[in-house]
């Protein structure tokens, strides 16, 4: 399968990227690792007329502590996050979840900014980021702005990002030794989750239970008022709108959301134990 024709622009800095986005507007798409974008271009689900390749921007790949937050450069590839010592110490759910994305070849290319921008409801890292909370830092012609992660994903392939803006950084709170868990249910090793659940400090996010990744708000409210894990997890699918496909119907996805939420909360309450 061959993508439709497009013009290719390579940029060396964020300013150049924003200038190119401003010039080409909605006809342009940003190319980083390309592992979400190129597959949908090959299927012609996306037909951009211009690709702006940001992979040459050197200073977009980093993980560092800034105050009470961890800042992750948008160009950080999954395999880099997977083995980053700062991330492992400060926000350990992220290296683990990065290791669960696709397969090694995919992780060698894919970037955190790319998966955030793509807004696939079945993505691993966005699910973990939504459970963590934090902000997405974007840069447009008017400068930088921060978008709360809870307001970033609007629906399937739809985000709060404007056509002339570039994601430059993701910021999440440092969680240190707090308990966390990521429960991912797949049929095959390198698949997207049929359903996945991320849990960190009483916050719970669900993959593939709606048009975008979503928080399990009924579960979180129940936990906040002191409900048991079993009671809270039983509410995990409330307010969700899962789809049906060849892998699972809606009721099965709801069952998985409740079951995986219970497992995630149990694992998270056991301390900072690594997921198996």
């Amino acid at each position, binding site marked *: 399968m061959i993508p439709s024709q497009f*013009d290719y622009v390579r940029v060396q800095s964020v300013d150049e990227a924003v200038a190119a986005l401003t010039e080409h507007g909605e006809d342009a798409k940003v*190319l980083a690792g390309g592992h979400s974008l190129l597959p949908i271009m090959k299927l012609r689900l996306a037909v951009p007329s211009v690709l702006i390749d940001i992979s040459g921007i050197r200073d977009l790949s980093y993980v560092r502590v800034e105050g009470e937050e961890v800042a992750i450069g948008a160009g950080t590839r999954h*395999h880099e996050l997977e083995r980053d010592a700062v991330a492992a110490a400060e926000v350990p759910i992220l290296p683990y979840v990065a290791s669960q994305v696709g*397969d090694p*070849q*995919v992780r060698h*290319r894919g970037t955190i900014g790319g998966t955030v921008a793509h807004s696939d409801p079945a993505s691993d890292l966005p699910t973990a980021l939504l459970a963590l909370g934090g902000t997405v830092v974007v840069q447009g012609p008017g400068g930088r702005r921060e978008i709360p992660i809870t307001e970033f994903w609007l629906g399937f392939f739809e985000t709060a990002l404007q056509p002339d803006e570039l994601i430059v950084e993701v910021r999440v709170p440092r969680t240190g030794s707090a308990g966390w868990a990521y429960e991912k249910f797949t049929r095959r090793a*390198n698949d997207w989750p049929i359903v996945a659940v991320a849990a960190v400090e009483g916050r719970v996010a669900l993959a593939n239970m709606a048009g975008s990744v979503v928080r399990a708000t009924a579960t979180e409210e129940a936990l906040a008022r002191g409900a048991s894990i079993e009671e809270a997890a039983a509410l995990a699918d409330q307010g969700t709108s899962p789809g049906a496909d060849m892998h699972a119907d809606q009721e099965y996805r709801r069952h998985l959301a409740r079951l995986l939420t219970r497992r995630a909360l149990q694992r998270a309450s056991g301390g900072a134990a690594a997921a198996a």
Partner: protein
Amino acid sequence: MQVSITVNGQQRTDEVEPRLLLAHYLREVRGLTATNIGCDTTSCGACTVIVDGLSVKSCTVLAVQADGAQVTTLEGLAGPDGELHPVQRAFREEHGLQCGFCTPGMVMAAVGLLADNPDPSDREVREGLEGNLCRCTGYHNIVRAVRSAAQAGPAAGQVPQVQEVEA
């Protein structure tokens, strides 16, 4: 657009369309047909090659993204005298293939895996090769071959030194 890509030590400049996939560039522009295209959807791994030291699926990389890069394909593993790379040798000795279609990608992914983890356990081999499918389901001998290759030492995770680039 002009790209200059070093493949198996040979640098060349070619005029390509931006939408040309690296897999097609290797097969059709460079004439290196060991790299197979299986699923064409980033799933099967048959098109795996090494780009700047890391395994990638060349059906999901544009040739223009590899501009300036060092690419190694299966053809680049054996020595100039035809001496097999340790991973190739181990695949032959352990019979790590049946129909052979997945083999070039499987070997390249295994080289990448061994570069990262020189002495993997069975489980680590299976997880490290999760992006490569063998539809003959010959996985047992593939895992055996990768573990056997690891016994050859660090050479199993290395691609041959880049040759002199022509001026």
